[in-house]
């Protein structure tokens, strides 16, 4: 079996991302861009898995994983809206 190049995928937590551009600017392989003010992995195949984006992100909004690591969906609360609506009422 030939040595296969490792492939990576990105877990992005859009609700936490503030679009500061830090991960985009310092990615050594220009993998990432901003789209509508949020990070987006445009060229995931170029990713070398250095994880610098993940370590520098001030908002814990991006994570890099080896593809096929079998970790499944990221289990985080970034899609839960914890805000209590002003019109909320309690009976």
């Amino acid at each position: 079996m030939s040595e296969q190049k490792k492939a990576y995928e990105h877990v992005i937590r859009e609700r936490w991302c503030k679009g500061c551009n830090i991960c985009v600017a310092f990615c050594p392989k220009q993998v990432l861009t901003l789209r509508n003010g949020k990070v987006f992995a445009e060229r995931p195949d170029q990713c070398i898995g250095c994880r610098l984006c993940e370590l520098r992100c001030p908002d814990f909004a991006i994570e890099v994983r080896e593809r096929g690591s079998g970790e499944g969906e990221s289990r985080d609360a970034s899609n839960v809206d914890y805000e209590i609506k002003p019109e909320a009422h309690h009976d």
Partner: protein
Amino acid sequence: MSDILKYFRQNRLPHIWCPGCGHGTVTGALVRAVGKLKLDKNKVVVVSGIGCSSRAPGYLDFDTLHTAHGRALAFATGIKLSRPELKVIVMTGDGDCTAIGGNHFIHAARRNIDITTIVMNNNIYGMTSGQYSPMTPKGMLGTTAPYGNVERSFDLAKLAVAAGATYVGRGTAYHAVLLEDLIEKALLNKGFSVVEAVTQCPTYLGRKNKIGTAVDMLNWFKESAVNVKAAAALPPERLAGKFLIGELHNQPEPEFTAEYAALVSQVRRKYDNFQGEVRECGQNSD
């Protein structure tokens, strides 16, 4: 990273910090170091004072305490003395730690009490909108220094070493791998450990001084920081305007709560063996 999310109060996120603020990167580095050391989160206490930086413990799922401005180390000292088995971490800002809290800082260092102090140094009072701090470099602008700061700034690492800290390191939000490594070593040191984490406040320091975006500020750290190992081989003129990063001091010495416990048991033994006759009294002075 999902593995470190268990240390967060995820329902408090996204955090309050501005886009590009370095405080989140430093908080991430601390959490990763704690995760690497597999510390039991029920045995970790994180204490802070007041400031944007001091908001950090509110996002962390340890036992946390958000105290009065400058007083994090005073509260932390009480916690550590009463429960020496706990891992006590202080998260503080340059203003919180070196201005109003400066006295607590030097005395905690002098005692060598086993507390890991992470100073998020953004060279400014962020929370109150950009007044200069004791760590604002000379010449830089702040809302209270509209023509440039005329005061000299502290070198926090030198201050910590001179006051008696036994582990001192400096990293930046750009050098995130180094920062995590320094925090890990600081957590392992049994004694007073200080990690100065140079971070960016794009909203006030950056804007006031026209440094640009968070990315520009990180580039500024990249260009101005010199690793202490590399610095040893450089002539002094190449170090002008630069600052050192890396492990700057590591010299273990007897730790305060251990010394205190030893004293307590020594005194207790003495009185337990007391047989009567003229009592040698340890505390009665009247």
